[in-house]
């Protein structure tokens, strides 16, 4: 384990009776990293977050926060941790200021620094205007911000956010996302979500979990490379036979799609675009469109999670590891 990994999860299991919600999960989160934790509903995201957040004990395995075992020395480990659960834990009958003061006190912030901690959390989450209002009277977006303010008030090194943008309108979602990016400047963030663009826009690394197992763990950069698909979409005025196209070096298969276009799948690292253009000119195929097809994260997600449904779990898990 390197000194710089703030969260280390080792062989985590969690059973709810017979149901295995989390199965042999291992991963690390480095300092300053934003980890996107993706998965369909019921995949075990929230369970994992609750375990890391110290709200749930694992059936087996270890969780280290900054090298401190959360089961052995919970108070020390939790001091390094800010956690926003799925539904923000707000006392609706307190004002924002009172609530944050309470959070500051239960997070053991010394009295001398309390004022400053509250002010900075309030400012960072854009709550300065609503400090004296009752939490119950705030809109959902503001309540979510109060939840985030609560999680960062004691400047923890790790912030866990469980579906922070669920149920918000598009403008609020953008605001919360920029807030998350802002938080990530100083803290490591684990963000659980099932909204894919969120991951693409905010995270440094993606983990996809399905049925309690980790099926993908890649940096966004690797992910981008992976998203460089291995298909081209071409349109030809005088299309030759498919067999003739398949003879072009690098082309693996040709498939007709609607609109008279052809989808050409090619061997990775052997892009036939140049040769296709040359051939088209030489043979007068009348090429008027050539587009590299880009896979979206959504496709990767659907591919991975649906292939698992057919019992392909082990191989996908091994690939990820």
């Amino acid at each position, binding site marked *: 384990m390197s000194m710089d990994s703030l969260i280390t999860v080792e062989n985590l299991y969690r059973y*709810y009776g017979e149901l295995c919600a989390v199965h042999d999960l291992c991963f690390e989160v480095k300092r300053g990293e934003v980890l996107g934790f993706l998965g369909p509903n019921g995949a075990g995201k929230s369970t994992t977050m*609750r375990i890391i*957040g*110290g*709200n*749930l*004990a694992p059936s087996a395995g270890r969780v280290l926060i900054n090298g401190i075992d959360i089961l052995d020395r*919970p*108070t*020390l*480990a*939790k*001091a390094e*941790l*800010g*956690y926003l*659960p799925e*539904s923000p*834990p*707000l*006392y*609706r*009958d*307190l004002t924002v200021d*009172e609530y944050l003061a*309470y*959070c500051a*006190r*239960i*997070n*053991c912030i010394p009295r001398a620094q309390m004022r400053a901690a509250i002010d900075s959390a309030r400012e960072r989450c854009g709550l300065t205007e609503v400090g004296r209002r009752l939490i119950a009277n705030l809109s959902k977006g503001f309540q979510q911000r109060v939840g985030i303010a*609560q999680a960062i008030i004691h400047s923890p090194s790790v912030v866990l956010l469980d579906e922070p943008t669920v149920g918000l309108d598009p403008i609020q979602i953008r605001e919360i996302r920029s807030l998350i990016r802002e938080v990530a400047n100083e803290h490591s963030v684990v963000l659980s979500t099932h909204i894919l663009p969120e991951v693409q826009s905010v995270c440094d690394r993606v983990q996809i979990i399905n049925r309690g197992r980790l099926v993908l763990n890649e940096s966004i950069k690797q992910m981008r490379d992976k998203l460089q698909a291995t298909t081209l979409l071409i349109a030809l005025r005088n299309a030759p036979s498919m067999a003739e196209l398949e003879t072009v070096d690098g082309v693996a298969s040709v498939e007709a799609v609607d609109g008279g276009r052809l989808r050409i799948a090619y061997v990775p690292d052997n892009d036939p675009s140049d040769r296709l253009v040359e051939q088209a000119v030489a043979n007068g195929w009348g090429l008027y469109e050539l587009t590299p097809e880009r896979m979206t994260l959504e496709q990767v997600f659907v591919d991975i999670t649906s292939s698992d449904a057919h019992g392909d779990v082990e191989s996908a898990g091994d690939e990820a590891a």
Partner: protein
Amino acid sequence: MIFAIAGRELRSLFLSPLAWSILAVVQLILAYMYLAQIDLFMQLAPRLPTLPAAPGITEIIAVPLLGNAAMILLLVVPLITMRLISDERRNQTLSLLLAAPISMTSIVVGKFVGVMSFLLIMLLMILLMPLALLLGGSLDFGVLAAATLGLFLLLASFAAVGLFMSSLTAQPTIAAISSFGVLLLLWILDWAGNNAAADAGPGNDVLAYLSILRHYEALLKGVFNSADVIYYLLFITLFLVLSIRRLDAERTQY
């Protein structure tokens, strides 16, 4: 930490109308009983000097008042304690406490201290009534102090049971009715002992000894027996430890 939790608990109590109405209702009923006792004393007053070892106003007014207060608070304390943990669980604010760097013991003790501060306010308001007698007479402060201590310990025991019951469920009403049930049962355990006084076996003695009321009665008479005080302290500790264990178990089983 403990005081932060206790402070918020007390604050939430007073932010809802529940605490205010409970204080008002209890005060009203006890004031009526207090006046009835004063009436009784006025009737007895002419004959008292003729009696050997005649009871004073403390015995005739203050002690029955505190005795009745115990009975009324048996009904009322579960209503105050019912929301302690069940409400946090229901509103999912418990995760805030569980994710904070504080031990389960601090959480439970904090909640207990919070509710005890409320009960202490109530106790002081009740005490104002017998103390008002000082305007026209003198009190036996020894008896009054013992009885007050007894009521305080009794209330703390009620609160500990209520806290534990609240930690078991997410429904405040269930917490209230079950703590009321447990308290009433502990109260009337005594009856089995009393009725069978003639052929008192060891079982009945044990039941009578366990009764929460029995130990209060001694203190009400002004008899300060350390065994009674220790009984209450053990009782309170037992239920607080059970609550801590219950919250710890919350993490391991869903």
